[in-house]
């Protein structure tokens, strides 16, 4: 049934524990978590995720020992109807193990980080009870992501795909009853809904692709689909791949469905790092890489994918320049980098895409978590400043703004302090040195400076593009320029200059439990490039993935491309220093780019009004259509007129006149009454026979005997 070999040696039998370790962790926390302290809850969740990582390592090791031959581990019969056989099987090959290692490795580090982060976050937000819930969701996410990457068929992949979508929804809306600043509002849950609905559009595309696939190939199994794909008309493959692209656009935040990802920053920062930067959003890239055999059959579709990625990369990078929220900048940066990956896999440079996926997981997780550390530092500073403020004036209750409630927020201006706004920061280099250096490493890796991980992976993508798709190369280069620019802008605004807010001046460094995982990620960001160095004899990731992807092009380092990209990055950083570093921003001063760029910067600041455009073009007309359908068509036409008047009225008339009066009363009733009367009179006659005299009964017996004998005589 499977084309791949079945597991015989190695640790492949452990594959189900990829999913079950986190599931056990979350069950333990659900059932017993109420009695645990926060540390125990965090430890259980981290251990569960860590166990998943250990299993991934063992699987990778077994795979390497078996020379990378893909292994299918059958686990469960799921749906068996007639000839349709859908099973839950684990596919262990070099591609899936790469994803497993990234997901569980980065995931475990973020779990550890979250112990420290959530400890403070739940207290700033004023509901420590949600600590346990957070780790349950996080473990559920790891389990779902593992189902996604380890599935043996598009159907199991879809199960995980939907599962991570659910986790994303739950975690974006984690603080569902407040906005990002902690004020009572439905903003966060609206962000969660937006993410969910937008993903639903993408999932629709995925589903259509899956149905087409089943219609064309009769299977969801990867191997069987790829086997059959060669025999099918290219038009079908084009349709499948393009519908799949819609799914990818939804999950991996590509144009036109990227709009949910910036809003998803409403979730706690570890969530932004784990789900909305490192792992879940890369599922789309994984999907395309997994379907490499389908995409390589249809160059037209590949071109569309590559262009989508490239345009997204540039578009999001321009928006990132105009953002003030530290996490929003990183969010648009994530969209941009995902654009790089999608462009890469679209061009057929699957190794480059996967390489960038891995390095991006390292440095973007690092950046997000460092940003979380910065935000926490500012929260602490704000708390400290406000506290001393209140002590001096010896009035007010002190403490957090959340406690004051809605009306209090309007009374005092400082209640709406936003710890994520870069305009409130500045000079954090001195107060938070560890976080500063970690953030620097992440920034350099993202900007693509030698020898950080981002340089190698981005360069490989650019090199591929320069060889095959000049347009894509141009777009991506400009995007890379913007990337370096907005990251430079961020560094200058956040860490240099003078504090622009009391909170920034009093900011405190985070504890080791927060910084320790960051250091691991920083090391990976620094050294991650070693996974696939573009020199003869290296290309380890390429060789590793070759087991799964077959034809892999190992390109040598092209000094021209590398030089141009490095030059662009350095120029951009220099430019950002000129604008933001030389004359640091003062408190209350508008962005220095606002004047020279004018309406262009306004566009960047407002995300090119895409959300407003969606509202005007799709959502508002949709709402109006819904109102029209609900009120006029459904209620007035269908309900009032058709159902009430036509159907119910006709029915009433018919049943009253036709059935009740004629059929029932004059027909059935009359017959039933006649039957009753007839029976009554008949029995009234017959009862006279029952006179009670036993002699007459005996006489009737004798009459019978006489008649029978008479019959016998006459018969003979």
């Amino acid at each position, binding site marked *: 049934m499977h084309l791949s070999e079945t597991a015989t040696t190695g640790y492949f039998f452990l594959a189900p524990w990829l999913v079950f370790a986190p599931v056990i962790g979350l069950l333990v926390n659900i059932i017993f978590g109420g009695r645990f302290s926060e540390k125990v809850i965090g430890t259980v969740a981290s251990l569960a995720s860590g166990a998943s990582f250990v299993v991934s390592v063992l699987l990778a090791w077994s795979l390497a020992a078996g020379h990378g031959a893909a292994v299918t581990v059958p686990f469960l019969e799921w749906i068996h109807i007639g000839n349709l056989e859908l099973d839950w099987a684990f596919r262990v090959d070099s591609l899936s193990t790469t994803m497993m290692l990234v997901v569980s490795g980065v995931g475990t580090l973020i779990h550890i980080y979250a112990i420290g982060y959530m400890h403070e976050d739940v207290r700033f937000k004023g509901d420590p009870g949600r600590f346990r819930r957070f780790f349950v969701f996080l473990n559920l996410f790891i389990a779902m992501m593992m189902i996604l990457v380890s599935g043996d068929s598009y159907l199991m992949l879809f199960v995980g795909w939907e599962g991570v979508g659910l986790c994303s929804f739950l975690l974006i809306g984690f603080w569902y009853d407040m906005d990002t600043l902690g004020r009572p509002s439905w903003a966060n849950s609206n962000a969660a809904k937006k993410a969910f609905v937008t993903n639903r559009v993408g999932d629709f595309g995925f589903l259509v692709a899956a149905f087409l696939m089943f219609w064309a190939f009769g299977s969801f199994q990867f191997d069987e689909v790829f086997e059959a794909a060669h025999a099918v008309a290219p038009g079908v493959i084009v349709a499948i791949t393009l519908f799949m692209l819609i799914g990818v656009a939804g999950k991996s935040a590509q144009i036109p469905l990227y709009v949910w990802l910036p809003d998803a920053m409403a979730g706690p920062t570890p969530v932004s790092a784990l789900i909305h930067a490192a792992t879940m959003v890369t599922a789309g890239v994984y999907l395309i890489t997994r379907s490499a055999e389908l995409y390589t059959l249809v160059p037209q579709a590949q071109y569309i994918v590559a262009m989508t990625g490239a345009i997204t990369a540039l578009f999001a990078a321009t928006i990132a320049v105009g953002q003030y929220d530290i996490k929003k900048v990183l969010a648009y940066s994530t969209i941009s980098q995902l654009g790089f990956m999608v462009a890469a896999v679209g061009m057929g440079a699957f190794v480059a895409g996967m390489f960038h996926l891995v390095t991006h997981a390292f440095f973007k997780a690092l950046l997000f978590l460092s940003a979380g550390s910065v935000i926490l530092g500012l929260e602490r500073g704000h708390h400290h400043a406000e506290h001393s403020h209140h002590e001096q004036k010896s009035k007010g209750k002190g403490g957090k703004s959340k406690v004051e409630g809605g009306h209090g927020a309007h009374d005092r201006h400082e209640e709406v302090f936003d710890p994520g706004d870069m305009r409130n920061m500045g000079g954090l280099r001195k107060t938070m040195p560890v976080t500063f250096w970690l953030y620097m490493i992440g920034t350099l890796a993202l900007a693509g400076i030698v020898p950080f991980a981002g340089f190698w992976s981005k360069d490989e993508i650019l090199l591929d593009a320069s060889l095959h798709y000049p347009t894509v190369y141009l777009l991506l280069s400009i995007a890379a320029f913007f990337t370096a620019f907005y990251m430079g802008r961020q560094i200058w605004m956040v860490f240099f200059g003078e504090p622009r807010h009391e909170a920034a001046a009093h900011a405190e460094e985070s504890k080791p439990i927060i910084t320790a995982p960051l250091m691991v990620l920083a090391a990976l960001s620094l050294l991650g490039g070693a996974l696939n160095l573009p020199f003869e004899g290296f290309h380890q990731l390429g060789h590793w993935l070759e087991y799964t992807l077959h034809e892999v092009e190992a390109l040598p380092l092209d000094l021209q491309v590398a030089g141009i990209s490095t030059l662009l990055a350095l120029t951009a950083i220099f430019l950002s220093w000129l604008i933001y570093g030389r004359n640091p921003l003062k408190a209350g001063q508008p962005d220095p780019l606002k004047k020279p760029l004018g309406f262009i910067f306004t566009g960047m600041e407002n995300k090119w009004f895409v959300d407003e455009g969606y509202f005007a073009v799709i959502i508002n007309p949709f709402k109006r259509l819904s109102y029209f359908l609900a009120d006029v068509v459904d209620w007035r036409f269908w309900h009032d007129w058709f159902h009430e008047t036509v159907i119910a009225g006709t029915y009433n008339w018919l049943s009253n006149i036709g059935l009740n009066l004629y059929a029932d009363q004059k027909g059935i009733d009359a017959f039933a009454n006649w039957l009753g009367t007839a029976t009554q009179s008949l029995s009234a006659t017959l009862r*006279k026979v029952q006179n*009670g005299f036993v002699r007459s009964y005996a006489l009737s017996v004798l009459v019978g005997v006489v008649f029978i004998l008479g019959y016998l005589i006459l018969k003979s």
Partner: protein
Amino acid sequence: MIPVEYYIILSAILFAIGVAGVLVRRNALIIFMSIELMLNSANLAIVAFSSVLKSFSGQVFVFFVIAVAAAEVAVGLALMVEIFKAKHSIDVDQMNSLKG
């Protein structure tokens, strides 16, 4: 030598007289006696056939009939005593409460 039909005809006549007794008399005891007469006529027929066929089975049956008749009379007379206690009469026409 007597033809067996004579016995049969005698038996039939006795049986008819018994039937008439059941139908005509109102005294429950006499009705009972008439029933005994009918049993006897049947017995007579059986013994006649048994004699013709040279088989003793008929006689054995008659013996059983006599035993059953004895049991029947015992129970029947006990019932009659009970009825008399309740109704103070053994006129069967008095026992007509079971009518439509």
